[in-house]
C-alpha cells in the first residue's frame, strides 16, 4: 500500500528501489485526542486512531501503537471516516453520456476517467475520499461505473478502488424521454422507456442461454463446438441478469420506483440503489422490503417536473421506513460540502449526528459495495480519515487533513496548492472548477 511519491519521471529501477525503501520507512500513524466519530460504534471523546500499513489498527480512548509512530495531536478536533459520494460525474470530461442509443451497457466509465480533473481535488478538500463515477442519465441503460479513491496527484490506476464491485447505471423518467423524444425516437414516453428495457433484457436472456448451453456442453467434454459470438452489450446485460453487476438507477417518481422494482423481479435481478429518489418518502416501506438503498439529495427540488414533489424530509422519512439512505452530490459544487448536506438532516427530520454521518459514509459505501473496507472507523478497515476543525455537521466545518490508506492527501495548512502529492506532481495550473455538464440530474 505504501507507494513512492513519484513524478512519473522515475525509471523503473528507481521506482522499484523507492517502493522497497519507503515500505520500510513509513512509520505507524496515531491521530490522538480528537472527538472520533466512528459511525458504527459511537463517538469517542478524546479518542485516538492508530494506522498501521494503511489500515486502521486500533481505535479507542487509548490505542496500542508502537513507539516510534508518527503522532498527530488533534486536540479539539473531530475525526470521521472519509466521506463517500455515491453519485458523481467528475473526471469524465464531456464523455458522461453515450447519447446515441438508449441502451449502451458496454460503455465503461474507466475509459473516460481523467484523473487530472481538479473537481476531484476540490472534493478531496471537502473530505471526500471515495466516489462512484457514473454514466449520465441520457440512456435507459447507460454504462458501467468506476469507483475511485480520491488520491489526487497519483496515476490513474493508483486512484482506482481495488477490487470494488462493478456497477451499471440505468436511468428512467424525463431525461431519456427528452433526449430521444426530441429526436422523434423511442423512448419518448415512460411506456417507451420500459419497452426499451424489456426488449434489452429479452435479448440478454437469449444470449445468456446460448452461452450457458455452450459452457454446459464444453464442461461435458463435447468437441467441435461453435463458440458463440461475443456481444459486449448483451454480455453486460447477461451479467446484470446473473447479479454480477450492481444496478444503480436514476429515478425520481414513486410510481417509477415500483415499476423498476417490478421489472427487476420480472427478470430476476436486484436493484442496489435508486439515485435521486426524491419521492421515496411516499413508498419507502415497499422499497425497503427489497433491500434497495437510495442515494438522494438533501434538499434539491423543483428544477424539473419530476422533482416537484421533492421534500427535504425525504431522506429521514425514508430512513425511518427502513430504507438505507445515502446523500450524494451529483455536482462538482456540492460534493465539496457533503458534510453540511448531512447536517441538514438534523434540521429536516431530526436525525441524530450518527444517522446523518452514516448517510455520507457507511451507507454510500454499501451502495458501492465497499462497506467492508471503508465508511466507518473500525479496526481492519482502510485508513481513510478526515480531521475537521469543528463538528463536521456544522456550517463552520473545514477539512484540515485528509488521509487515504493512511497517506496524507490533503493538508489545509500548506500554502500554495495544499497537498504533498499535488505539489510533487504538478507545478502549474490550479483548481479551476469543471463546468462540464453534469449527468443530467
Amino acid at each position, binding site marked *: 500500500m505504501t507507494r513512492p511519491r513519484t513524478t512519473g519521471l522515475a525509471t523503473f529501477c528507481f521506482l522499484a528501489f523507492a517502493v522497497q525503501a519507503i515500505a520500510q520507512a513509513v512509520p505507524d500513524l496515531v491521530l490522538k485526542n480528537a472527538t472520533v466519530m466512528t459511525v458504527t460504534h459511537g463517538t469517542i471523546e478524546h479518542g485516538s486512531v492508530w494506522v498501521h500499513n494503511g489500515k486502521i489498527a486500533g481505535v479507542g480512548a487509548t490505542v496500542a501503537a508502537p513507539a516510534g509512530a508518527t503522532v498527530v495531536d488533534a486536540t479539539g478536533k473531530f475525526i470521521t471516516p472519509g466521506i463517500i459520494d455515491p453519485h458523481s460525474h467528475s473526471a469524465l470530461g464531456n464523455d458522461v453520456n453515450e447519447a446515441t442509443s438508449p441502451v449502451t451497457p458496454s460503455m465503461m466509465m474507466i475509459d473516460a476517467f481523467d484523473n487530472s480533473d481538479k473537481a476531484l481535488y476540490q472534493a478531496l478538500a471537502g473530505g471526500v475520499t471515495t466516489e462512484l463515477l457514473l454514466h449520465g442519465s441520457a440512456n435507459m441503460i447507460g454504462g458501467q461505473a468506476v469507483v475511485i479513491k480520491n488520491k489526487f496527484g497519483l496515476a490513474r490506476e493508483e486512484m482506482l478502488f481495488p477490487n470494488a464491485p462493478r456497477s451499471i447505471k440505468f436511468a428512467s423518467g424525463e431525461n431519456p424521454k427528452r433526449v430521444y423524444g426530441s429526436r422523434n425516437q423511442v423512448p419518448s414516453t415512460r411506456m417507451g422507456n420500459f419497452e426499451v428495457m424489456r426488449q434489452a433484457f429479452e435479448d440478454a436472456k437469449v444470449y445468456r442461454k446460448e452461452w450457458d448451453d455452450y459452457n454446459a456442453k464444453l464442461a461435458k467434454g463435447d468437441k467441435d463446438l461453435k463458440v458463440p459470438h461475443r456481444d459486449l452489450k448483451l454480455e453486460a446485460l447477461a451479467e446484470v441478469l446473473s447479479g454480477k453487476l450492481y444496478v444503480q438507477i436514476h429515478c425520481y417518481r414513486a410510481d417509477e420506483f415500483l415499476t423498476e422494482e417490478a421489472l427487476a423481479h420480472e427478470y430476476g435481478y436486484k436493484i442496489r440503489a435508486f439515485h435521486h429518489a426524491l419521492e421515496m418518502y411516499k413508498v419507502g416501506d415497499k422499497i425497503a422490503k427489497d433491500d434497495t438503498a437510495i442515494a438522494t439529495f438533501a434538499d434539491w427540488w*423543483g*428544477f*424539473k417536473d419530476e422533482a416537484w414533489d421533492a421534500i427535504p424530509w425525504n431522506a429521514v422519512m425514508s430512513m425511518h*421506513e427502513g430504507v438505507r439512505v445515502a446523500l450524494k452530490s451529483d455536482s462538482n459544487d456540492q460534493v465539496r460540502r457533503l458534510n453540511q448536506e448531512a447536517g441538514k438532516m438534523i434540521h429536516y427530520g431530526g436525525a441524530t449526528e450518527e444517522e446523518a454521518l452514516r448517510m455520507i459514509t457507511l451507507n454510500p459505501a454499501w451502495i458501492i459495495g465497499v462497506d467492508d473496507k471503508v465508511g466507518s472507523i473500525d479496526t481492519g478497515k482502510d485508513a481513510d480519515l478526515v480531521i475537521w476543525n469543528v463538528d463536521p455537521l456544522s456550517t*463552520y466545518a473545514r477539512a484540515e487533513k485528509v488521509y487515504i490508506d493512511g497517506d496524507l492527501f490533503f493538508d489545509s495548512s500548506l500554502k500554495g496548492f495544499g497537498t504533498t502529492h499535488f505539489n510533487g506532481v504538478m507545478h502549474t495550473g490550479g483548481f*479551476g472548477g469543471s463546468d462540464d455538464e453534469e449527468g443530467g440530474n
Partner: protein
Amino acid sequence: MRSFVIPQQSEGICFSSRLISIGHAAAVALLLVTPVSLHAQARMVDTTPGSAAIAITNGKLLTITHGVIEHGTIVLQGGKIVAIGAASSVKIPSGATKIDATGMTVYPGLIDSETNLGLVEIESDRVNSDLVETSEEIYPQMHVYDAFHAETERIPIDRFNGVTNAIVAPESSDTMPGQDIFIQLAGRDRDTMIVTKDVALAMNFGQEPKRGGRGGEGGAGRGFPSTRMGEISQLRQALLDAQEYMVKKAEVAKKPASAKADETESTGRKGGGPTGKFDLRNEALLPYLRGERPVILGAYEGHDVEVAMALAQEFHLKVVLNHVTHSQDVLDKIAAYKVPVIFGPIYDFPDANERYDAVYSMPAELQKRGVKIAFASYSVEFNRNLPYAAGFAVAYGLPYDEALKALTINPAEMWGMADKLGSLDIGKTANVVIANGDPLDVRTSVKQVYIDGVAIPMETRQTRLRDEYMPKK
C-alpha cells in the same frame, strides 16, 4: 418501524391559554390572527397588522445594531417592534399573546439580495419562465414587477428558513435586462408583497452576458455583442442615448406650453417627451443617470470589475457591485470604490490558479478592507439556504457578527430600507424570526416567522406533502 417526530411538534409545552410555546405558535396564531383555514393553500398570507400585541420572551435576541440580549423580550404590535430589551426591563402590554422563546434565538428576518423568486416555477419548463426577455440585450424598461408571481410555491419554502425580504432580479444573461423589485415574502396580494418597484437596475458585464454572441460557451457567435468590447460599447451607447434624451427633455420642458402643444400635434404623440415621443427605454434610465437609484453591476473577474466600474464612473452611476468572486487581485481597488458589494455565489468554483478556498475566503478579505457586503442566493431552488452562505464565509474567516449583518442591516442599507428593516429596533417593521439555534448553521430549524408582526403559518407545499405521507402511528 420507528415513529417519526417532527421537531416542531416535539419541543415546547403549552403553559396556558395565554402563554404559547413556539412549537404550537404557528397554528394558534393562525387561528387568532389570520382568517385562513388550515387546509387552505396558505400561500398568500394577509399581514395587515392587527392591534393585538405579541411578546416573545426569554429568547436570545440578536439585535444586529445593539448586540446580543441573552434573556430578552421583544414586543410586536401594529406591525412594528414596540419594545425590546432584557426580559426584566420590558413591560409586556396587558392582553399580549406571550410566546416563550426559552432556549431559542430571535433575530430580524433575513434579506436575500438577489433571487429570481416569482419569475419561474419549474426551471426546466420554459413555458412558466419569465426569467429574462431574451429578445434584446438592452432592456432597462423591463420591470420585474410586471411578471412577479406572488403566489409561487417557492416563497413559503424560502421564508420557512427565515428569509423575509428579497431583491428579485431578472436572470443575469443580458448586459441590461431590467429593473428589480424589493419584496416582502408575505402579503395578501402582489401589491402588498412588492415593497419597492424599480429598486435598482441590473447591469452585467464579462463572460456571462455574451450569450447573444458567443452562446455563453466562449465560442464564436453570430449576435452582438460577442466580446467584452461589444458589451461595453452597447452599454455606453445606451447610457449616451439616455443622457441625450434627458437633455432634450429638459429643453422641451423649458419651452412654453403652446410650443409643446404644437409639437405634440405635429407628431401625433402625447406624453411630453422630446419631439413628443415618450421613449420607455430612455425614460427607464433617467433615475439612474441622476444617481437616484443604484445600478447592480455584476462582474466576476478583477479586470471585468475595473472596466465596469470605469463605465459606471463615466456616467456617475450609483453602484452596488455584484459577484466579484474572482477579483482577489483587486481587493484594495474594490475597497477604494467605496461601494457596497453583493458577494457570491460563495460556492463559485475557483478559477485556474486559484486555491481551492479562494472564493470562500473573499468575504473576509473584503470585510477586512471596510467593504460593506451582503449575501444572496442567486436562485429559485436554493433560496432557503441563504443563511448558510454567510455561515460558510464565517468558516473561512468572516467575523460572525459581520456575517449576520450581511444578511440584515447591510442589505437594508443598500436597498434604502434601513429605517424599516435589518435589525431588532423599536419602530422597525416586525419581521422577526425564532429559531432553535444559530441561524447560520445547517442544523438549525426555524420555528416561527413573523412578517408585519403577523405569525406566518409555518406551512409549505413541502410540509403538506410531508404530513400527508407521514407514517401513521
